[in-house]
């Protein structure tokens, strides 16, 4: 087990290193460079100044040399300055990470709390009206463009009815938990609706599979109650394949957060990455994308461990 953990951690570091090079090269492909932006905003800059600035930032050196310098600094915990915010990259990134965690955590917990019980009930009687309704609903949410859903929610609940604020994370100057929660309502509804369908389908499929096993019939035969069969006998086993699914949807949740955060102007990681890419903020975009990759990799790793914990038949070597 410990050998497995060490090997996986080593792999994660390796993948992260490879990704950092790929992302570094990709970001170099974005239009313009920071010095061009400075020239555009300051007419007094001479060509000599521009060349000096390029040398200062190392932009005149070949790609691999630049990457090596960046990687060396990053390994010492220095991710450079964010051009857009004029502050150290990590100081910009970390508060945003917290905001995204709040948004994603709330919506994911709500999604599972709604989708899983419904999936269990739908699996109990395949073909019943509840199953059909659940199936239709999951089809609808899988096919829904999340940004459009967000747009419609803003149109109805913010523009027409004025019940909730259309965007942001808090009213400037007001603050307070109630205010934050108020701003979370619409983004959370969007994410819950979008993720609801897939999670329901996964749970239903896993439960249908489990309920067909012989040991369920045995449990019925010995007179166990329906609720006990569903929760103790079936659900415990149905959860095993779901662990992987939950971990994998972590990555897509992050992608979804980019759209949702951008739509609601919610200051999270997704919007930060989007703004950084469009604003030519190399350091910030790079660090943000690497953080996003790291979180996905760690979620997959956690899934492998949880898988072994939930199913004693699985032994990693």
């Amino acid at each position, binding site marked *: 087990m410990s050998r497995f953990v060490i090997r996986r951690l080593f792999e994660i570091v390796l*993948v992260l290193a490879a*990704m950092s090079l790929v*992302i570094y090269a*990709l*970001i*170099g*492909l*974005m*239009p*313009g460079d920071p010095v061009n932006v400075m020239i555009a905003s300051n007419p007094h800059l001479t060509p000599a100044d521009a060349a000096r600035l390029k040398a200062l930032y190392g932009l005149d050196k070949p790609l691999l040399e630049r990457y090596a310098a960046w990687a060396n600094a990053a390994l010492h915990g220095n991710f450079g300055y964010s051009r857009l915010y004029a502050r150290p990259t990590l100081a910009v990134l970390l508060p945003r990470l917290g905001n995204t965690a709040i948004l994603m955590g709330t919506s994911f917990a709500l999604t599972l709390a709604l989708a899983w019980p419904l999936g269990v009930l739908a699996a109990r009687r*395949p073909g019943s009206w509840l199953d059909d309704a659940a199936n239709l609903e999951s*089809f*609808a949410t*899988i*096919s*829904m*463009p*999340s*940004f*459009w*859903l967000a*747009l*419609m929610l*803003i*149109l109805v609940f913010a*523009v027409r009815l004025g019940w909730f604020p259309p965007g942001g994370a808090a009213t400037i100057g007001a603050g307070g938990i109630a205010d934050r929660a108020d701003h979370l309502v619409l983004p959370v509804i969007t994410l819950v609706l979008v993720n609801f369908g897939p999670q329901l389908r996964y749970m239903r*499929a896993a439960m*249908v599979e489990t309920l067909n096993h012989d040991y369920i019939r045995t449990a019925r035969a010995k007179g166990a109650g329906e609720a006990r069969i569903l929760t103790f006998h079936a659900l415990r086993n149905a959860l095993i394949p779901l662990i992987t699914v939950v971990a*994998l949807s972590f*990555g*897509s949740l*992050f*992608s*979804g957060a*980019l*759209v949702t955060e*951008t739509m609601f102007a919610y200051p999270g990681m*997704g919007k930060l*990455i*989007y703004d950084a*890419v*469009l604003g030519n903020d190399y350091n910030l*975009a790079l660090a*943000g*994308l690497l953080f*996003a*990759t790291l*979180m*996905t*990799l760690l979620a*997959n790793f956690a899934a492998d461990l949880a898988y072994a914990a939930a199913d004693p038949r699985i032994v990693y070597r």
Partner: protein
Amino acid sequence: MSALLQPRVRFGGGMLLALAIAVLLMPFVAQLLGTHVDTVDLYHRLAGPSLRHPLGTDELGRDLLLRLLEGGQVSLLVGITAALAAAVLGTAIGLVAGYFGGRLDVALMRITDGVIALPLLPLLVVLAAADLHKLGVPATLRESAAMSLYRIIALVTLVGWTTVARLVRGTTLSLRRQDFVRAAEALGASHRRIMLVHILPNLTTPIIVATSLAVGEIILLESVLSFLGLGITPPLASWGNMLTGAEETIALAPMLAVYPGLLIFLTVMACNLLGDGLQQALDPRQRR
């Protein structure tokens, strides 16, 4: 042909067919209305429905119905082309990995897992923002009107092949041990011949199902990227970039924001129903 008896196949397929016919009829609709999709009319911006403009006009006074039809052409074209390209790429990778096995299989599947685990949308945003000039794309192609179309198809193909690759690899692994493949081997057939003539025809079902599901996913992805300004660029209409403009005028003309989204939703839903129905009809083992 029994697949056509599946109600989901008929419903989803019928919807897609109707949509395809509608978008192909666009030139006739334009003639009938006596206007063109790019005709700007600033005196009649955000107008309501009328005989001349059955669904009204957009923020530049262009006919909304025609714009929606053009957007449909673009969305369906991107969805189908990219899904087919991704299917070809995924099949090739999955076939090679499953057939040869060993280290090659491990390496290819690691890459597949890696692509699946990536934060897809943030990466696509970076890729879509890449400067074609720095990539060395010739200027004639770079500045052509359809460039954003090629670009989005290439991008989506690049990330969309993983599902097919995994499916094909899994099925190839089990097919490879079956007697008819061994017989072909014993008869001295080349690797190439076994893969293309003996294994590939047995893979059609999973590939067709995965591809029809992929069309829907790709249309969603295209609409998000176009909405963010990184996909199809105006003046070419796409349902995604029509919503970008609609967001600003949402208080004045809400229907401008409703129609494109509704069409994306219905199209993707039709693709998903078709894929799901095909799966149930063609693959009885997977019946739920």
